[in-house]
């Protein structure tokens, strides 16, 4: 299986690209340090000569220069390069967390439902159906302020980590069902298999059966689904920040950069700006989806591409 993956060139390349993004996110502070800037400096006030009174960089292409590689953000004039690095960092951090949370939940509930069957199965399935009927995006928007308010009184400054946690929670809440359902199916099928019966007959405790017999067999769907889910969470998170209910200025975030890019200020005066978050995200998502396909093919070659 591993060999088959290695043989798949696109898979390997995209794996490298994805790895690169995670590395960038991980090392953002280091890189920014070497580059000698941070995403918080208000260059519009530090270096007013670079901007007009509306905060638009006066140099062409959003003020790209040897000094500011990716230019300056219209408005307060943050350094785009470092902002993007940190933005990627934030978004990936959140999405990874969400993925882990959902996978764990999916395993827990899916496998339980599938293995125990009967009443447990029935109720878990109903819950899944119910949650699937939710208008997800709407729910996210509506619940973000609520969840935030669970952590801080609306009077105090909302620390960044709270917003992060909130983002993770809301996405997790409506994120785990699909995987859960798949795992339930797989487990259900496995349960009927001889070797499980054998284990049962030999009097192995359920816990052990699940650990030793079932989990190893559901690794494939988990891995495949995981690689599909993560990019979705990335875009969803970005979407929320774009709508203004996720991460907000000055904390850098991919989606929040899109929000900025969609302001008239930018669209009127500085298209260049929107390409940095835009292109980087496309590359990331494409790479990740290709990776996902390769992983799936590697695990179960039967499914036709």
């Amino acid at each position, binding site marked *: 299986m591993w060999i088959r993956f290695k043989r798949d060139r696109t898979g390997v390349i995209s794996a490298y690209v994805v790895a690169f993004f995670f590395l960038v996110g991980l090392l953002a502070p280091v890189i920014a340090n070497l580059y000698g800037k941070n995403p918080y400096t208000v260059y519009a006030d530090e270096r007013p000569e670079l901007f007009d009174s509306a905060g638009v960089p006066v140099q062409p292409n959003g003020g790209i220069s040897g000094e500011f590689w990716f230019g300056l953000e219209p408005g307060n004039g943050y350094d785009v390069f470092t902002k993007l690095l940190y933005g990627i960092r934030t978004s990936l951090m959140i999405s990874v967390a969400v993925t882990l949370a959902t996978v764990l939940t999916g395993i827990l509930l899916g496998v339980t439902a599938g293995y125990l069957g009967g009443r447990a199965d029935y109720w878990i399935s109903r819950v899944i159906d119910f949650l699937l009927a939710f208008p997800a995006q709407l729910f996210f*928007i509506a619940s973000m302020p609520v969840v935030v308010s669970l952590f801080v009184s609306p009077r105090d400054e909302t620390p960044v980590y709270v917003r992060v946690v909130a983002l993770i929670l809301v996405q997790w809440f409506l994120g785990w069902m699909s995987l859960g359902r798949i795992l339930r199916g797989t487990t259900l099928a496995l349960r009927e298999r001889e070797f499980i019966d054998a284990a049962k007959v030999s009097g192995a405790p359920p816990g052990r059966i699940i650990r030793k017999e079932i989990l190893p067999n559901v690794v494939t769907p988990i891995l495949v689904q995981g690689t599909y889910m993560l990019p979705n969470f990335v875009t969803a998170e970005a979407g929320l920040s774009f709508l203004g209910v996720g991460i907000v200025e000055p904390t850098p975030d991919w989606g929040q950069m899109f929000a900025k890019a969609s302001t008239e200020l930018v669209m009127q005066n500085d298209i260049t700006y929107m390409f940095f978050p835009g292109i980087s995200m496309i590359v990331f998502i494409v790479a990740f*989806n*290709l990776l996902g396909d390769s992983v799936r093919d590697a695990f179960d070659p039967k499914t036709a591409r």
Partner: protein
Amino acid sequence: MLRFLLRRSLGAVVILFLLSIVAFLLFFGMPRDPALLMCGKTCTPANLENLHHVLGLDKPIPEQYWIFLTNLVMGSDDFAQGPCPAPCFGYSYHSNEQVWGTLMDRLPATVSLTLGGAVFFLVIGLGTGLIAAWKRGTIVDKTFTAGAMVISSMQIYFLGPLALAILVYQTHVFDKPAYNEFTENPGAWFSGLIIPWVVLSTIFASQYTRMARSSMIEQLQEEHVRTARAKGMSRRYVFLRYAWRGSLIPIVTIFGIDLGSLLGGAIITEYTFGLPGLGRLAVESVFFSDLPLLLGVMLFSATMILLCNIVVDAAYAFIDPRVRLA
């Protein structure tokens, strides 16, 4: 058939009921006090009290919910702003308009956006998908597949502003998207929605391209397709009659889901292009913590989703004779 519809609708109602509860509780978790909004400027604790009372916010939540439910079913006349026929979601805190009325006001924009977009992306998406499957392995297939892959990885919140920036703000080829009533001015209606349609459908189409292609290819492996070929049916005939018929199921399924969620409010699209649809209404209602409106939108879009699911399931019966409804 009828029994099936009845049963499904019943299930839907139950889900909606639960959803309304969740949404209701959700709102009361909100950090903002709606009364504060209504109270306006010369706001005294006394006023606030009074408002809490008027809005019924001083009642225990279960009771409030019960009131909400009864109003919903049989309307109510004890709103200060005036009578409120069923289905009554009450009056918006912010605009003092009837929620149901507001929903109905915003619906046309969303419907126009969705249906228009749907036409675009079904035609383009399925078209390219079929071509790719037909010419499987050729350069055409490869380009379509690759293109679809990249485009489907784009987000409306990138493609939208990009399109606006280029087409509207830089080149001034188009006017800023806006919603005009079809009945009043079809031309304006079309020209105002064209950019949103294109952007929306570009992204959706790419997904349909991929889906149509893969499910067609899957179908072409099917034995009954081989049989048809063995009967001497032409490749085209088999492709369009046998394989296509089989591919419909997954496509219809996804389409139902998409349509449902879009009709419930294409939030990011409407937001990006500033279209006065349900999606934007939703965002507004959250920003103004407008409980009645928020509940209204939530339930409405959930209804849309469920409705489309039912329609899809019903559609199966027509596509696949094996599916028996009841």
